[in-house]
Structure formats: structure tokens, C-alpha cells
């Protein structure tokens, strides 16, 4: 669909082909369609070994002993390592809190925790060897929810915590707690004509990226190691890997391999340290590839949550107050839990004007699977709950749910519950108007072909469960707010190295960053930025590695903003250098070198009036410019630990959805017919990629609305469905058409006015689908995903 709005005006390089704003195609596209693109599981080396991980079969137990002798004695086995084999005093890792053992020490805290690792000459040999490792477990009672975690006699998941959150949490089994208090919610409640409350449950979602965790570690002659891996953040991995190996960071050389999707699931370490340990021990390259079963244990998941909300409104539809309590289950290790708490609490009011709020969010330590980053974290769970509340309020007030939302929509200048003013466009009401204005899909499309109905267009699909019986249509709306970038005072910077020179008679720019391309298209955008800023056609994107400074994480919708910003910034500095060279060489030939504003465009130095001063080839003849610079967005600050006040976020991203569903009300099966989205992207650097991101994010939200959930047995804390047979993600027959309306309202603080876009569509998609199902069935539906049992009362 067309792009509308107020695009940022770009002067520099705007006439250069393939610059920003164009839908240029992926530079890795050809490699990816021919099967030549090297993913982390595709690495192969002459004499490589296969690594395999032995994982705990129980969720909470003391390890009395581990006997590896039989495994070690097997032919073809080169190494078997346990905690006792770790080479240094650093034996834990973690994103923020280093609470995760590289290999279990004395205790396992969740089902599937790594206990030992094996290297062998064939994966089957490694598996058989692992099966021969004898681990003697003494079972401990499992902690699985808030009640069992905070009971007076509760076992502590982590004894002797000394992290920076322990001082302000009410119980050592709570990772972090963030209250936010603004105004006086109790007083404001007295003004309310209607009050609604509800308890909501959000299931545990898996990122389910298609390329499982994998990589290869190759021991170096200098005692170091080269690691090829799929990750979201090379330098964060490096900081966690090197100390465990006892190596200086420069001896752990990391290169990004092809990444088969991420969605947050690669923010934490998985096989990285294990592969390095085995490679250094055996002196041989070691490849580790998780299969799908292991992948479900190999990365953190989206925090399941319980959310309690109360909202009030006056009879003319104005929100009076909001109170909420959000309990996130972080599982056995901290991972990104503190940041998830920060997002959940600070965005818990949604994109609405509510002056009086009383908010609390906590993350628990339990024996459930560790949870951490997944697309939209914290904000996703909250959006599901507050949007259900908006519908309840609208119903109670007998108002149209979209009009009710529009009436309370925040805008530029609105103060968030943290007291932070929103200082860029916030077109919440406009996005809602746009999705509502889109034409509705025709009714009964299963009959569209004529006389013959088509079960593929009905709930149940190919399974032939209905020919139209019991099918009811519903329509639902939702809108959400997501922060962009790392918040709460984090030094969120990126680094870009840009080189400009003449190669084969043409000016060429080379861009080198450590940004993890995980499929989002950052490499496409970097080339576009370089073309726009440097006026060249030829741009080479170097592979991401640790030979250049950190790019930060490919998460939080931040890479186009932050690493894109870094590339832009370095390019601008390179441009200045190029112009300096030009002035030195040719300044005397034309007065404009000294007086006019100069641009690089189409391979030439031109004045802003369009007069050509020199070819870049001539300027750069015998010269090259090469700069590596860091760039950071505006600083943020921490939230006050008691009041939650503070300018914690740098930017927000907004999307709205309208879902149209058809529900087989008798069987409880759902077919989503259409999922329309309107999103403000600030500036679409690559419109084709922007729409692709929005459609992908929307579909992940659809998945957790109707099918996706990791089911953990509450009695044992064991995962019951670690496979693609029983953890279902949407197929092409489950995914509807997704019309996208892109709005471009520039954020003056951001490069090109752009807005991070990846996560916002995942927020509002889920509650929109739920709202549509409620609309079709009249049921309350306070949990997601909705299963047929919930729709049929069975």
C-alpha cells in the first residue's frame, strides 16, 4: 500500500540512485535464494568435531555426582566437560546479572539446563556418549508461580544474591520490581462513573526462529579462538565468553554467520561458550547445531504474565485512573527480566492519557524455563491486558471501542506515567481512524468462488470441520505503544566504520559494523544510507565481526535508528574529509569550493545549486578516507525505584490493528480473515522492508493469540511440548491478508526522522484478534492464546 504522511526532506544525495526511501533489494538476496548464504549451521571444516549438550531431565535438583568415565571411554569421543573442567574462576554469564552457570554447578534450576558437553567425531557418537553420562539428581520441590516463589519458607532459586536489584526487591525470588506512581489513583477513582477490572493471563511464547542455535569454534594458533555464530549482539556475547575462557577479548574473534531469525531469542548466550571450551580443549574445530527439540531449551522465551488491571472512566468517556499489577515469570535465570519489568511498568498505561496511575511490575525467579527477550517484551503483555480493558470500558459506556480509544488517545506532548513528555508525533487517534476506515473484507469468502465452497477459507481449513455451520464473524481493534532502543540510562551506542576510495575507476564506499543482520534488512539500509550520504552507487557491506566496535543489539527496534544513525554519522564525517581533500586539490579552480554548500551526488561533488565541481574519482585519486566512529542517541535516565518517575525512553513506536475473524463457535476454531495494520514509521528508509517487518510482526502476534504456547507442567516445571508438532506457529493457511497503511511523521530527534518499527506491530495484533473473537462469541476471554476449550466451555 501507498505511503502517506509528511516525509522528511532529504537534500544530500537525494538524486543518487539506491538511496534512502527507495525499496532497494537485499544485498544478500541472491545468496539466500541459491542456498549459498552461509548460516551458522552450514559451517564445515576438514577435521571438525560435533559438540553435544547433556541437559537436565528435571527442573530443580541437587546434583550429587556426575560420572563421565563411560562416555569418555567411547571410541570417537574427544572430550567430555562438566563444571569442574571450567578453566577460570568465572563460571557464570548473563546479560545484566551473571547468574547463569556455563555448566550446572551442584544444582539445576530448570528443565533442560546444560550439565555436561561432549565433543565427538559424529553427532550420533556425541549423543550416545552423552547418554552414558551418569548424573545423580536429588529432587527439590519446584517453584512455579508467585505464591510458591514468595512463600515464607520458599527455597531460594539463587542463594546469596549480590546483584544491584537485591536491595529493592521484597523477596530474593523476585528479580526486579518497578512501581510507578503518578497523581492519586484512589482519589481519581472517585470521579469515575464506571470502573472495570480484570485479571489477564499471557502464555509463554517462543521466538521459534527457524534457524536453530548453531555455530563453529575454531582454535587459533595463538591460543585464541575464532567463533562463527548466529547472535543478535556480537560484543555482548564477547564480554560474556572471554572471561569464562580466560582469554583477553582480542583473542576471541567473533564473526557473524548467517542468522536464521532471532526475535529476541539470540540475545542470550546459547552454544557459544560450550563450542569454544570444546575447541580449546580438543584443539579441533567444534560445530554445535541444536535440533528443534533442543532449541526449545536452548534459548529464553517470552515472559508469561499475570496482569491485574483496574480502569475508570467518566460517563462521557474520559479515563480517570488506572491501577495495575503485572507479574512476569522470569524462570530460573535473570536474562533480560529487569528490562522487561521496566518496559511492562512504564508502558502499562498504553498510548492513552491517564493522569492518575498506580502501577507495579515484578519479575519472578522460578524453576520454569528462563524467559527474556522477545519482540516487544513487556509492552506486548501489557497491551494485551489494557486493550481488553478498553473494550470493556467502551462496552460499559455503550461507546464505540474505536471512538472511546480516540477520545483518550495520547498525542505529542502527553506525559507518560513516568512523567516523561512524549516529544515527537504520537498519531494514535489517526492510526485508529485509518484502520477503521479500511474496507472490510467480503463476508463468506468460502463461497466466493461461486457455487463451490472452499474449506481452505473456513475455520478448520483443510481439516474439513465446517461448511459454514456455526461460523460467526467478529471485528476487533487494538493499538499499542512500544519504546524504541535501550532505555533507563543504558549507554545505547553503535559504531560504524566507513571507507571511501576509488576501485576500478569508480568511487566505492565500504561500510563495516558489528550489527547482527538477522533478516530485518539492516544491511540493505546501510547501503542506502551510504549512497545517500556519499553520493556513490557502489557500496560494499563488510561482514559483521568484532574487528569493529560494538553495534549494540539487534533488538528493541533499535538498529535502523542507532546503527543506521552511526552509519549516517560516520558517512557525514567521511564526506567532510572528502570535501577537504577536494578543496585542497581543486579549491582554486572554482570559488564555490569555498563559498557554496557542497553535496556528494551521483559520484560527483556538486553545489546545492546543482553545479558539478569535480568527479569523486578525481577527488579520491590516490587517496582514501577511512573513519570509525561511535554514535549514540539522546541519553535516557533510570526510573526512580519508588515512584518510577524519569525520562527513561528515547522514542516510541505506535501501531494499530483491526482484526476480522471467523469463529466456528461450536468447535471453538478460529480463522483470522484479515489483520489490517496502520503504523507510523517516521520515515520509511526502505518501504518494501518496512511493510515486510510489519506483516511479520503482525503474524507473530496472531500466533500467540490463537495457537502458540509453551506448556509447562505446573507440578514438575517440565516443558511438555518442545517440538514443532506441538508448539504450533501460523502456516500460510493461518495467516490472513495483512493490508498495511504506513504513516510517516518525522521524529525530529532521530536520523532522517525515522522511528524503530520492528516491534510495535507485534503488540496490537494479539489484542485485536482477541477483541474480534470476543466480538464474535460474546465471551470474556482473559487469557491468550485462546484454545478451542476456552471458546466452547470445555
Amino acid at each position: 500500500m501507498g505511503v502517506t504522511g509528511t516525509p522528511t526532506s532529504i537534500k544530500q544525495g537525494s538524486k543518487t540512485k539506491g538511496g534512502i526511501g527507495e525499496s532497494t533489494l537485499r544485498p544478500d538476496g541472491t545468496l539466500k535464494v541459491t542456498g549459498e548464504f552461509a548460516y551458522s549451521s552450514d559451517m564445515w571444516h576438514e577435521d571438525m568435531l560435533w559438540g553435544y549438550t547433556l541437559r537436565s531431565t528435571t527442573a530443580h535438583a541437587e546434583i550429587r555426582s556426575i560420572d563421565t568415565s563411560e562416555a569418555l571411554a567411547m571410541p570417537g569421543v574427544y572430550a567430555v566437560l562438566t563444571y569442574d573442567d571450567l578453566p577460570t574462576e568465572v563460571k557464570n554469564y548473563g546479560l545484566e546479572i551473571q547468574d547463569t552457570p556455563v555448566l550446572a554447578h551442584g544444582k539445576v534450576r530448570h528443565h533442560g539446563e546444560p550439565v555436561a558437553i561432549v565433543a565427538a567425531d559424529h553427532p550420533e557418537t556425541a549423543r550416545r556418549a552423552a547418554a552414558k553420562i551418569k548424573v545423580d539428581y536429588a529432587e527439590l520441590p519446584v517453584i512455579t508461580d508467585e505464591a510458591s516463589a514468595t512463600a515464607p519458607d520458599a527455597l531460594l532459586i539463587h542463594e546469596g544474591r549480590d546483584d544491584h536489584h537485591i536491595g529493592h526487591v521484597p523477596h530474593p525470588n523476585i528479580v526486579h520490581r518497578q512501581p510507578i506512581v503518578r497523581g492519586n489513583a484512589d482519589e481519581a477513582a472517585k470521579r469515575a462513573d464506571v470502573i472495570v477490572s480484570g485479571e489477564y493471563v499471557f502464555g509463554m511464547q517462543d521466538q521459534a526462529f527457524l534457524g536453530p542455535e548453531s555455530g563453529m569454534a575454531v582454535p587459533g594458533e595463538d591460543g585464541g579462538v575464532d567463533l562463527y555464530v548466529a547472535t543478535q549482539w556480537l560484543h555482548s556475547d564477547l564480554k560474556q565468553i572471554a572471561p569464562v575462557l580466560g582469554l583477553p577479548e582480542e583473542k576471541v574473534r567473533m564473526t557473524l554467520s548467517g542468522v536464521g531469525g532471532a526475535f529476541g531469542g539470540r540475545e542470550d548466550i546459547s552454544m557459544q561458550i560450550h563450542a569454544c571450551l570444546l575447541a580449546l580443549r580438543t584443539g579441533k574445530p567444534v560445530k554445535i547445531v541444536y535440533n528443534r527439540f533442543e532449541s526449545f531449551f536452548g534459548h529464553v522465551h517470552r515472559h508469561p504474565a499475570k496482569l491485574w488491571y483496574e480502569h475508570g472512566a467518566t460517563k462521557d468517556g474520559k479515563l480517570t485512573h488506572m491501577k495495575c499489577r503485572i507479574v512476569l515469570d522470569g524462570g530460573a535465570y535473570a536474562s533480560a527480566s529487569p528490562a522487561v519489568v521496566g518496559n511492562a511498568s512504564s508502558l502499562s498505561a498504553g498510548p492513552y492519557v491517564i493522569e492518575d496511575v498506580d502501577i507495579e511490575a515484578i519479575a519472578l525467579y522460578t524453576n520454569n524455563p528462563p524467559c527474556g527477550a522477545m519482540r516487544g517484551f513487556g509492552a506486548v503483555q501489557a497491551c494485551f491486558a489494557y486493550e481488553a480493558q478498553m473494550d470493556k470500558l467502551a462496552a460499559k459506556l455503550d461507546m464505540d471501542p474505536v471512538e472511546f480509544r480516540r477520545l483518550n488517545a495520547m498525542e505529542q506532548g502527553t506525559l507518560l506515567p513516568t512523567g516523561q513528555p512524549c516529544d515527537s508525533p504520537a498519531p494514535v487517534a489517526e492510526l485508529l481512524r485509518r484502520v477503521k476506515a479500511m474496507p472490510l473484507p467480503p463476508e463468506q469468502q468460502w463461497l466466493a468462488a461461486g457455487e463451490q465452497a472452499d474449506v481452505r477459507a473456513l475455520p478448520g481449513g483443510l481439516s474439513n470441520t465446517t461448511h459454514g455451520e456455526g461460523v460467526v464473524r467478529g471485528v476487533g481493534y487494538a493499538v499499542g505503544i512500544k519504546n524504541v532502543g535501550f532505555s533507563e540510562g543504558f549507554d545505547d551506542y553503535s559504531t560504524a566504520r566507513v571507507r571511501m576510495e576509488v576501485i576500478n575507476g569508480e568511487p566505492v564506499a565500504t561500510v563495516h559494523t558489528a550489527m547482527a543482520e538477522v533478516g530485518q534488512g539492516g544491511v540493505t539500509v546501510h547501503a542506502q544510507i551510504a549512497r545517500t550520504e556519499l553520493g556513490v552507487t557502489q557500496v560494499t557491506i563488510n561482514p559483521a565481526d568484532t574487528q569493529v566496535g560494538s553495534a549494540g543489539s539487534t533488538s528493541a527496534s533499535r538498529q535502523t535508528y542507532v546503527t543506521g544513525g552511526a552509519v549516517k554519522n560516520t558517512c557525514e564525517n567521511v564526506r567532510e574529509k572528502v570535501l577537504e581533500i577536494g578543496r585542497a586539490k581543486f579549491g582554486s579552480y572554482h570559488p564555490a569550493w569555498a563559498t557554496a554548500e557542497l553535496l556528494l551526488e551521483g559520484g560527483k561533488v556538486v553545489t546545492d545549486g546543482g553545479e558539478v565541481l569535480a568527479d569523486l574519482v578525481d577527488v579520491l585519486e590516490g587517496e582514501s578516507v577511512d573513519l570509525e566512529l561511535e554514535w549514540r542517541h539522546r541519553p535516557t535516565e533510570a526510573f526512580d525505584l519508588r515512584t518510577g518517575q524519569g525520562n527513561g525512553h528515547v522514542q516510541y513506536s505506535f501501531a494499530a490493528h483491526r482484526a476480522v475473524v471467523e469463529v466456528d463457535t461450536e468447535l471453538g476454531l478460529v480463522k483470522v480473515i484479515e489483520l489490517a495494520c496502520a503504523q507510523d514509521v517516521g520515515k520509511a528508509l526502505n518501504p518494501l522492508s518496512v511493510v515486510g517487518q510489519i506483516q511479520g510482526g503482525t503474524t507473530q502476534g496472531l500466533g500467540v493469540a490463537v495457537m502458540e504456547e509453551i506448556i509447562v507442567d505446573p507440578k514438575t516445571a517440565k516443558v511438555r511440548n518442545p517440538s514443532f508438532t506441538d508448539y504450533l506457529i501460523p502456516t500460510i493457511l493461518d495467516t490472513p491478508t495483512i493490508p498495511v497503511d504506513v504513516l510517516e511523521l518525522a521524529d525530529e530527534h532521530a536520523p532522517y526522522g525515522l522511528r524503530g518499527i520492528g516491534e510495535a506491530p507485534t503488540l496490537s495484533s494479539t489484542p485485536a484478534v482477541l477483541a474480534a473473537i470476543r466480538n464474535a462469541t460474546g465471551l470474556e476471554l482473559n487469557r491468550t492464546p485462546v484454545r478451542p476449550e476456552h471458546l466452547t466451555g470445555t
Partner: protein
Amino acid sequence: MRVNFTVNGRKQEADDVWEGESLLYVLRERMGLPGSKNACEQGECGSCTVRLDGVPVCACLVAAGQVEGREVVTVEGLADFAKQREEGCATGACGGGGTSLQAAQQWQAKGTDSQTGEGEELAPIQQAFIDAGAVQCGFCTPGLLVAADELLERNAEPSDADIREALSGNLCRCTGYEKILDAVRLAAARQDRQESGV
């Protein structure tokens, strides 16, 4: 055990194959053809879809020993396969090659965008996937290409419902499938245009 079969028109042999190995493992780890992807190894995602004697199958669910003497086409051979089909002799294809560590290290995304890997001739469905923006992380792409190419081979003008059904065994986590539908429609339209000589 030893296994002999034809891959992309070329005779291949693998030695010391463990009897429990899948065709997928043999292709990826023994024949240097890692294009077919190992996303689930349980037949639920279609990332390893190859043609076995012309029929699309999940390579992860075919025991290596079952392929003895048979013909396999993988994504690496898809362009040649499509070309030969066009020329009327789609009996398999030649070419392909895996990713050595060296090649992986030398990977560079050149600035010519879609023309990267210049000189490489693509099957129409491959070009359509690039042009339509159907590729993000790309892990599902090889399997989807083999499945979509086979669909267009037997149904030159598929309806949207036909496309959805034919690709219902191929999971994609990045795109939400819209651009994949676009790509198949685009390839079908180009095929149609070519055939009608426009």
C-alpha cells in the same frame, strides 16, 4: 554404509554413512550442499524440501539409504533444473556447491543489491522471491522455492488458495507470508507473459 545417488544432475557418493542418517544430513554434511535447511528435522517446517525423483519431500524424513540410485534436486540445482525444464529436459541439474568456512569468511554483501552474485542465473521463482521482498532471514527460503517451483510446474495459474495450500507445509517466521504470496504471483505472471510472448 555407502550411498550413491544423483544430486542436481551429478552422481554423488557418500561413504561411512551411519544408517540413521537422513538425506538432509548427507546433503549438508557429506556432499557440501547445505542449501537445504535443518530447521525442525521432524517434517513440520518444509525448510529441507527437495525433489526426490521429481516429488517434493522433506529431506529430513528420508533415510539416506532409501535414496540409493535415485535423483535429488536441491535449491542449489533449482536454477539449472528450471532452465532445463524450459528447454524441455528437466531430468535434473548440474552445479551447486557447499559453503566452506573459507567461503563463509569471505562472504560480502556487495553494493549492487539484487545483482549480488552477478552472473548467476536464477530460476524465475528465485528472482521473484528477491524482487517481491519475500526473503528476510532466508532460512525458510530454499524449501519454499523448491515447493513453489513445483507448484508452478503443475499449475501455471494458481489461485491464492492454491498457493496457500501448496505452501502450507513450509513455515516462515519472518514475513507473515504476504510477500511470499506476492512472489509466487509474480513468478506466475512473468511465466504467463513469457509464454504468451508478450
